[in-house]
């Protein structure tokens, strides 16, 4: 454990928050905060289409997102940390979803869950008039989880991937394997 912790700390050293020449360094504090953020990713309750059911399944007993502390689905964007865009976004929804993104407070992240959110998925064809071809056209996306719909395991992997993006290392503490 201690060894891993040391590794985790050294990994994130020189990452965000520690500028080389600055007098005051808050790297350790930043790392601590990042650890907290990574382990407490509260998603926004935002189900758009098919993928939302798999998102619900990921929170249900079999897959249990709660193990990683990410099961606290908040209906209010103010309290959510990560927006899981689960499903197709069309141009009518583009405005509201952008508002939701703006209403979320920093630090915030976005997971594009499913092909529709990544690129428009199966609904893209020449002459299509409704679908936004990828939510990264609307706001920055941190993790893409492909699939139509992706399996719940894929969402868990997406969350772990996002944690890695936040802390700079693949999850501490390690996930126990069965």
């Amino acid at each position, binding site marked *: 454990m201690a060894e891993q912790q040391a590794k985790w700390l050294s990994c994130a050293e020189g990452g965000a928050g520690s500028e080389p020449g600055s007098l005051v360094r808050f790297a350790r504090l930043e790392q601590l905060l990042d650890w907290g953020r990574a382990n407490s990713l509260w998603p926004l309750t935002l189900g758009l289409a098919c993928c939302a059911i798999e998102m619900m399944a990921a929170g249900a007993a079999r897959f249990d997102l709660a193990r990683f502390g990410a099961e606290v689905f908040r209906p209010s964007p103010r309290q959510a940390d990560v927006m899981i865009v689960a499903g197709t976004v069309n141009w*009518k929804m583009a405005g509201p979803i952008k508002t939701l993104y703006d209403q979320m407070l920093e630090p915030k992240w976005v997971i594009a869950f499913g092909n529709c959110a990544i690129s428009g998925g199966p609904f893209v064809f020449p002459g299509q*008039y409704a679908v936004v071809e990828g939510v990264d056209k609307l706001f920055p996306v941190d993790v893409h989880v492909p699939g139509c719909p992706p399996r719940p395991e894929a969402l868990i992997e997406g969350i772990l991937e996002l944690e890695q993006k936040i802390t700079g290392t693949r999850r501490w503490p390690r996930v126990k394997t069965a």
Partner: protein
Amino acid sequence: MNELIEQLKSAYAVLVVPARADTQAAAVPAVVQPTDPERRGCHLEVTVTPAVVVDAAQVANRFGFAIDTITGIDWPEAGQMEVVYDFFHPQHRLHLVVRTRVPRDAPALPTIQDVFPGANWHERETHDFFGIKFIGHPDLTPLLLPEDADYHPLRKDFTNVSRSSN
């Protein structure tokens, strides 16, 4: 069952647009045509002129039909748009189709939403997709398309709307 169909037939047979002196239009009777439900999925097809769709809906209402759906079909070669009203019966195995055709350049026909309030959304949707105007409809703002949509995507000559990808 069969007698119900017969009654329906006779009810629709009298649906005639009366001849009007000011337009020289002749009286047009409704065309009632029984169809094979195994092959086509409906029992009775009634073709009427747009002027009597409300009466046609009233007959369906009198016989206890429920509104199934309303849709449009675009026939650019014929220069027409077809509006198809589907009615199903909640108690009997009976499916009724009422068809009417409107000119493509000025598609308009009366609304049946006073007979079937459920037609409100179906007509709005048909207006969204085909641009068919339902006269007397309280609110024809786009239902499924964005509120400011001015295109009718299910018309055969529809091409992609220009969409700035911001």
